[in-house]
């Protein structure tokens, strides 16, 4: 690791570690997509990736893709089915884990990607896409967020993707991976699993508008191995998603 690694590379590695072998994964784009490829290349060779456009893959796309609909994500897929077919599998409970992001998060893991009201002024965001479905129906979800005070709020302005709630039949947020650490959200609690190298408890508290269960015995996120970094840099050679002006490690 002579060159170090970026925070986003570390997040990709953390995302990949959330995927177990043979699991069915609702993948999404950006960091989770790389995490899926990384998991496939290392500890989870039997994982299956589902995309909401209907693509089912058992290996990552051969070339870099900007969207899940890009031709390299179709070529070599094991199946291209209807959106409602993959949503049906999701609703059935056949998807083990799904990845989600958001503009805002609250302590129950509710995510907002619909609209915010900074200073009372409406800011309209794109909306749910498939996120609300994955949040509702996957066996568990892994959330990925930039860790900033304006995003980590006691109450989100709008629940696009429901977190833990009384009527939940399965799943819910299991893990949250941020630019600062990895958090355990199971059972509606918000606990630290690990902080990234160099991140202090004070930094997490400063960036989080609500209480975090956190003490000094917290572990440090295991940095990417050389093999993991090699995979990521092969898959995202120009650092389109993982590049970052600040390099750690």
């Amino acid at each position, binding site marked *: 690791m002579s060159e170090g690694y970026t925070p986003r590379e570390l997040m990709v590695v953390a995302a990949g570690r959330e995927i177990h072998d043979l699991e069915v994964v609702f993948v999404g784009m950006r960091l989770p997509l790389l995490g899926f490829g990384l998991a496939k290349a290392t500890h989870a060779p039997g994982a299956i990736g589902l995309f909401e456009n209907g693509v089912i893959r058992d290996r990552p796309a051969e070339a870099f893709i900007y969207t899940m609909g890009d031709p390299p994500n179709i070529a070599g897929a094991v199946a291209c089915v209807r959106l409602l077919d993959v949503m049906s599998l999701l609703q059935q409970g056949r998807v083990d884990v799904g990845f989600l992001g958001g503009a805002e998060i609250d302590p129950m893991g509710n995510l907002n990607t619909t609209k915010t009201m900074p200073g009372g002024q*409406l800011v309209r965001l794109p*909306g749910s896409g498939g996120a609300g479905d994955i949040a509702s*129906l996957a066996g568990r979800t892994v959330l990925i967020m930039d860790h900033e005070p304006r995003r980590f709020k006691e109450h989100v302005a709008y*629940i696009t993707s*429901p977190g833990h709630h009384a009527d939940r039949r399965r799943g819910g947020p299991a893990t949250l991976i941020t630019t600062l650490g990895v958090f355990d959200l199971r059972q509606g609690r918000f606990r630290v699993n690990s902080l990234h190298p160099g991140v202090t408890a004070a930094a997490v508290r400063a960036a989080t508008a609500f209480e975090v269960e956190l003490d000094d015995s917290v572990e440090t996120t295991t940095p990417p191995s050389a093999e993991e970094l090699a995979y990521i840099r092969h898959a995202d050679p120009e650092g389109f998603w993982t590049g970052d002006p600040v390099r750690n490690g």
Partner: protein
Amino acid sequence: MNGKRRGLHEAIAENVRDGDAVALGLALESGIPFAAVHEIIRQRKKDLSLIGPISDMAFDQLIGAGTAGRVIAAWVGNVAGGSGYAFRRAVERGIPRAIEVEDHSNFTVGLALKAAAMGLPYLPTFTGIGGDIVKDHPRVRPVTDPFGGPSLLAVGALRPDVAIVHVQRADEDGNAHLWGNLGLVVEAAYSARRIILTCEEIVPRDVIRSDPNRTQIPGFLVNAVVEEPGGALPASVQGYWRRDFAPFLDYHRRSSTVGGFQAWLQEWVLDLPDRGAYLQRLGQPALARLRVREERLAAPANFAP
């Protein structure tokens, strides 16, 4: 005029009316019928309801151009850049006009179309429970399970007046071969009152009949068939066109102001008479870069009886 073959201008003029509910962008990021989107803008259609799962920048352009009064979608923005600025201006400030938004998830908008495709008033689902999308939603009501299980939500049927779909090839009856992403194409095609098909190639009927499992839209549902190669650019079409990433970023950047949007619209839509002119403006080097020339053919499938 007999038959279903049309030019795009004519197809839009005949089949898209002011106030119509128009479904498009149904295969998600690929095969977005941008040529039809731009023709709708040129024809200054009004008060459209736009229906789709994620629309990429197509809905943003239609909204910015003032054609839309309502959006029924799961996601409106620009997959490359995030927010859709025209969508934001319309929702936040009523520019160029106020629009209603019926928020969905991909699953609920799919179920709404599927309910109509099935001739049903609604379909039940468990998605969305505990979130705000389904709260006070005009198309979502609670339902009980008549077999005694947990309660569900009913998503009401959504029938587009017209669905616009871009496919790889079709015959002149409108039987359409589509491969790659399917998304909600079938559901929208089955549910819509009318279908406009744009395609890379119109092929002899026997090409379609050689592979009936590749036919995602049967022709008897189709009203107009338009041969419009490159009609989905800058979106991709599997086996024909790569995604042209730059125009998405360019649009994203320029549309961040009203003036920038207008200049973009003038340059790429209003000043161009048709898709041919668009492709010409894109230029041969770009087209050569985007056109798929490699072959990775589907393994043979024998239909001999």
